[in-house]
């Protein structure tokens, strides 16, 4: 490198540092980062969430933005991987200097990325990570979805009370914080309600062969099989259960919902019941408007994660407005005071541990790649 080019580069570098350090110009957009798994085994989660977030931001910008400025989204793909999430968070903070970060959706990934945001004092709002530990990372970490203890409890009581199940089996992904967390809560609540856990099986994410676990379950004959986990494995398990002639009612968590569920599982996934955040059948004015606009924009029904992404963006925008300035600390304080923000999946009030309390819906997987609302349970 010649001296001259070096000089030019140094000048550019200085200018860049100067620009970042300067107070933002009035017309300059507010940068919000997203860390989402848009590729990899849970890619449809990231894509659905991002669609929801994008729509919310477009609507906010169309209505004049916040504090008179547009919001600009910067997305980093986490490749469905924890280490990549950590890198993505650091990149958004150090390279893009974002005001706040929305993401990840998988608890294991959010848990890997959150400490970086916390240590740098950047507010991070996860739209979909339900594991309790996520917001325990620190006071800069928020979420806009319900937590596992709540979701797991509701599924357990639905199984015990509405389905009159007495004997339940668990099939847990040992490598997933989300899966293990939910299984533990389900176990405690189901036992408390007088049910019995008759078998506890496990698998690793990425496994293809579940025949041994399923054959074991075939002779144990539980009333329900709870599989807290993600669609790829649930689809394969349902399919292999059919191949092995195992007939058990499968219960799942919100990770079940994905178009890939049908692609990987075929009609074997019909009849699975799962708990989630949102159903297109829920009637409230915001949800109805969201449903209509989403269908117009993307030509399909929104999934729960699209609704959650949309909601997280609304909550962040609301907090920026209340903070009154573009400042990370002020935004954190405003987020912590989130009260009665009306969103698609309910009304969000964050408690002292930065978690909302919201309703849970139970859906059934139906023929023709549809979900049917079975029950809505309000807090």
């Amino acid at each position, binding site marked *: 490198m010649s001296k001259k080019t070096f000089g030019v580069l140094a000048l550019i570098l200085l200018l860049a540092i100067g620009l970042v350090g300067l107070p933002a110009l009035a017309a300059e957009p507010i940068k919000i980062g997203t860390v989402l798994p848009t590729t990899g*085994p849970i890619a449809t989660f990231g894509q659905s969430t991002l669609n929801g977030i994008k729509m919310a931001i477009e609507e906010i910008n169309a209505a004049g933005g916040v504090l008179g400025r547009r919001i600009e989204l910067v997305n980093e793909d986490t490749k469905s991987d924890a280490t990549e999430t950590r890198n993505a968070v650091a990149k958004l903070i150090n390279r893009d200097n974002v005001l706040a970060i929305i993401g990840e959706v998988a608890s294991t990934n959010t848990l890997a990325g959150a400490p970086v945001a916390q240590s740098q004092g950047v507010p991070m709002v996860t739209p979909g990570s339900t594991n309790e530990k996520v917001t325990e990372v620190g006071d800069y970490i928020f979420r806009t979805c319900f937590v596992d203890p709540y979701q797991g409890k509701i599924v357990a009581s639905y199984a015990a009370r509405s389905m009159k199940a007495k004997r339940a089996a668990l099939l847990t992904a040992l490598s997933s914080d989300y899966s293990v967390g939910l299984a533990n809560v389900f176990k405690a609540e189901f036992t408390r309600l007088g049910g019995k856990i008759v078998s506890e099986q496990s698998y690793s994410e990425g496994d293809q062969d579940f025949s041994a676990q399923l054959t074991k379950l075939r002779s144990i004959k539980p009333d329900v099989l709870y599989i807290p986990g993600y669609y790829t494995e649930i689809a394969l398990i349902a399919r292999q259960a059919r191949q092995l002639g195992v007939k058990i009612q499968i219960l799942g968590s919100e990770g079940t919902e994905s178009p890939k569920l049908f692609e990987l599982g075929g009609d074997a996934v019909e009849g699975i019941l799962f708990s989630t955040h949102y159903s297109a059948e829920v009637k409230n004015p915001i949800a109805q408007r969201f449903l209509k606009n989403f269908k117009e924009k993307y030509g399909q029904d929104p999934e729960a994660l699209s609704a959650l992404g949309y909601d997280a963006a609304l909550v962040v925008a609301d907090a920026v407005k209340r903070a009154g300035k573009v400042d990370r600390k002020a935004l954190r304080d405003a987020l912590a005071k989130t009260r009665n923000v009306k969103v698609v999946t309910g009304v969000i009030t964050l408690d002292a541990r930065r978690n909302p309390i919201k309703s849970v819906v139970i859906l059934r997987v139906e023929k023709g790649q549809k979900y049917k609302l079975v029950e809505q349970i309000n807090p």
Partner: protein
Amino acid sequence: MDLLQQLINGLSLGSIYALIALGYTMVYGIVRLINFAHGDVYMVGAYAGFFAVWHYHLSFFPALGVAMMVAAATGVLIERLAYRPLRQAPRIAVLITAIGVSLLLENLGILILKPEPRSFPEVFPLALYNFGGLIVTNRQMAILAVGLVLMVLLQYFVNFTRTGKAMRAVSFDMEAALLMGINVDRIITVTFAVGSALAAAAGVLVGIFYNRIDPLMGIMPGIKAFVAAVLGGIGVIPGAMLGGLVMGVAEVMVVALFSSTWKDAVAFAILIFILLVKPTGLLGRPGGEKV
């Protein structure tokens, strides 16, 4: 009855391991190389089968043939480009190259084939057969049958054809074989082709039975098949078959009798145990070979 069912599950899984293990063991037998890229050749085979069925609408056997040919070509190409230039190099250099090729294939897979898992199209509809509570599917039968036929064909090829004889000669003493006028390079090419084709067959069978393929699908089965090859005695062809079947059954039985938590651990427990107790493997020749 349940244990019998688990035995069938284990044998299905085991034939997959056995087919992959054969490639490891054949290549090791000839060039004394643990071809760590072998698991990824299995992935390439699975994808070749996938595209043959999904895009070109071939039925099961033609798709299997296409997959085997594509994988054989991949195996030969790898040998030509990565291993042949290192024929005279220290073995550790070739070994590290193999790991490099493996990483290259995996990441090329992510780049070109996309990282999302794909669902294998149905090549034949599922049929269940109930033998007094024992449930066997036509897909399980296909895995077992294809595995068995390929293994028998391989035995015939190695023991009763000229090329097979040449292969054994090269395996026994490469320099002597060279002096006898055997084209060693050609034999090595054939070995890579045959081993890779067998792995591709395993890949297609996995796609059909478990219905999911992704670019990193070769890592775990690759490692387990390697353990199976060591278990049977590396370099010994019947050993790889036996090792694969034992591995599959062991993995399933651990779940059946103990806990599914130990499923993946059993492979490595077997590896450690065999290296401590009988490093030459179940059917291995005695001798100071280090794996």
